């Protein structure tokens, strides 16, 4: 069976796995990284959303072979000593209900805010529209993203 190496949350890891095995199961079953959640398996709910070289992606439809040599960041790799500002904003707005989709929501939001630090409401909705929350925390997700955006200073001109 082939061996694939990639960077996971800052550390190099190697796994022996079939080429077509979705990264989600490599992470969860082999590497015990369970922050990315299984919700649909077909890339439509966003519960597993993580970052591939800094961009949001869906480990449930990403074969492990495709991430060899790349940087993978999961919710576990976000922040450091303290919470990432987006995680903090999620706490400040009491966003979570059952909490299951929230790692994926946060990872989508973090990647989005990097590209668009001061988004409009429409841009937030568009960016977050691929993440499902069955509990219906959407209004608070919007608020948390706006709050996190405020913590990033406006670029000076």
């Amino acid at each position, binding site marked *: 069976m082939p061996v694939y190496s990639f960077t996971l949350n800052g550390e190099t890891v190697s796994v022996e796995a079939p080429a077509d095995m979705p990264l989600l199961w490599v992470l969860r079953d082999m590497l015990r990284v369970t*922050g990315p959640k299984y919700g649909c398996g077909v890339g439509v709910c966003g519960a597993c959303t993580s970052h591939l070289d800094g961009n949001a992606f869906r480990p449930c439809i990403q074969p492990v072979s495709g991430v060899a040599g790349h940087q993978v960041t999961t919710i576990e790799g976000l922040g450091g000593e303290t919470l990432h500002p987006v995680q903090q904003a999620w*706490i400040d707005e009491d966003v979570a209900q059952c909490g299951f989709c929230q790692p994926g929501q946060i990872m989508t939001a973090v990647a989005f805010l990097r590209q668009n630090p001061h988004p409009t409401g429409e841009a937030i909705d568009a960016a977050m529209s691929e993440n499902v929350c069955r509990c219906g925390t959407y209004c608070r997700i919007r608020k948390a993203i706006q709050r996190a955006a405020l913590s990033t200073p406006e670029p000076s001109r």
Partner: protein
Amino acid sequence: MSQQLRLMTRRSFLAALNLSVGGLALGLFPNEALAAEPSGKTGAKPKTGSEALEKSAPGLNPNAFVHVAPDGQVTIVCHRSEMGQGIRSSLPVLIADELGADMARVKIVQADGDKIYGDQNTDGSNSVRGLYTDMRRVGATARVMLIATAAKRWKVSPDACEARDHAVFHRGSNRTLGFGELALEAGKQRVPKAEQVPLRPRNELRRVGKHLPLIDGPAYVTGTAVFGADLRLPGMLTAMVARPPVVGGRVAKYDAARALEVPGVKRVLELPEPKKPYHFQSWGGVAVLAENTWAAMKGRGALDITWEHGENVSYDSGKYREELLASVRAPGTVVRNVGDAEGALAGAARVLEAEYHVPHLSHAPMEPPVVVARVENGTCEVWAPTQHPQAARTEAARALGLPEEKVTVHVTFLGGGFGRKSKADFISEAVLIAREAGVPVRVQWTREDDIRHDYYHAVSTQRLSAGLDAQGKVIAWRHRTAFPPIGSIFGPVNRPAEGDLQQGVLDLALAVPNLRAEACEANPHVRIGWMRSVYNIFHAFSVNSFIDEIAHARGEDTRDVLLELYGPPRVVNTLEALGVKSLRNYGRSLEEHPIDVGRMRHVIERVTELSRWKERQQDGRALGLAAHRSFLSYVAVVVSLVRGPGGKPAVDEAWLVIDAGTVINPDRARAQMEGSIIFGMSVALYGAITMKDGAVEQSNFHDYRLVRIGEAPRKIHVEIVPSEGLPGGIGEPGVPPVAPAIANALFALTGTRVRELPLSRIPPVS
């Protein structure tokens, strides 16, 4: 029916403690088990809360819920399941407030499934409303014992002492003793009877009704909260099951050869067929056990199974809809009668009639069912996201033929429940597989499994008839309802029972002189189960839509007609007044929780004020209104509908007013109401499980759609009516008025009357 709090002697508390310590310490204890495991290797058994509790076992432990250690650490057991309602923030605060504890020194431990805690079923919006007094008594008992101990030491009257800030104070001398200093001695006292323990006046409950921190918030946002699928046991295999696509079907034959060739697949085994009635038995089928989820999934895909579909193969949603329509067009069993509705209808100046249909719905919690189970040496241990840990224990024991005491059920976080996870079918299935496997097994359901093997919300057809006199006043009301009831999973039942009809039929307190309700036949062909708000969903939809139709027919405003139909403020507290033989009233007596029309009127009046109902039609938007009492709470909803892109109606704004009596945790109540609007929107806009040839046609979120963020209202306004009355439910009562409010707004906006959900089936309007 009051929750019977079982108060323990010291000895039995220790027994309870030993059981409770097996409970996973969630949230507050980050995912140590997983973090501690070396990458790619099989790790140790997940840590539980046991260490902390064993160390603290000496001290004061007057009952199964609270423990005060000599170092002052207070441990509170949360015996209800956390599924997003914030129960781990709400119930412990009741205990801590009565005790006078400092929350910073309180640790919360999740209970295993055990009768020692009384009812643990986290269902029916019942935790706070059912346990408000009992949980306070739990804390008050410990408080009384700590005060008595301090008073004895100081040789003063206990009446001169009070407990607050984690200590007992003597008012006369300003002396203070910390809870920890008193714990050992207090623990030697006789435990007073819970009923005799005085409760604090409400204003001394310092945190009740205030903003409570979400104790598991940090675990949720860092990915460390342990959900059902997150556990790994040494030597554990992952299983997936190919279940019969039609309920009542069975495996005729199967060939596992190709599945066993998939790398990582270890074993294939056939599960026993369930027998009627299905209860919470496993579904039967063929299980594939593998080293990891992917191998199990591929192995299952490689199975060659021939199914024998059985009698339900002819179940077809289109045909069934016609059956239900025929059913409500004929008289059913009379379940409610006031006056003479038939006579009044016959003599009415005008009769209005309408039929409404709501399809099957699926719970679709974000985390599909999943269980970790281990069966060895005649014992069974289960880790599961279950709403009903004791039923999980009972069903696991039943499936295995073991006595219940040989089964331990640990409760993880639930990635959503909505009623799905109170059914123990997925647990029955997992323990059977684990027994055959001889090693720990995680049975993972895919989303497709979840959508196709649910206990579905009942499909329903309603026929409403109203007789109006010459002035337009409603003088007769007849409600016929047909749906396959939940009782059909427990026995041969083919029409709603009176017990099912408390939800918006028998308890509808209309001021109409002639009222009649009939239950009509509806044969079950799938497993039917309770889903958030249950039968209230279609009853609220039909009743509120029909009232809107009556208002339109009279050329009057829906709000005025709604208030007229409910009539003057009054308390309805007798079966005679309702014209029914019995009323479950959500397990509470009518004396304690009467149907209070004044409260209903108030939420209607408030929500229409807040939403500026007078401006209900302007500038391409229209408002829709609906109101419903369920789970002993009163809710009114207004939505503002606008024409979205492509003429598709969109909910722009929503207002919800709830009177739920005393609310312990207003922020979580608010969050539940916000979530109820979204949940109700998914029901209204997209919710439909349909059957063809006996099998479910939908499979995943692309064809069982849920509302997404871009469709969520710009703003959801929630008002909680201030009250010191007995608590009502929170988790469910927000949902029922949402779909009819949207349908009524759609009519106001477009003139199209929708009598059948979901609205996505309605062609776009221009």
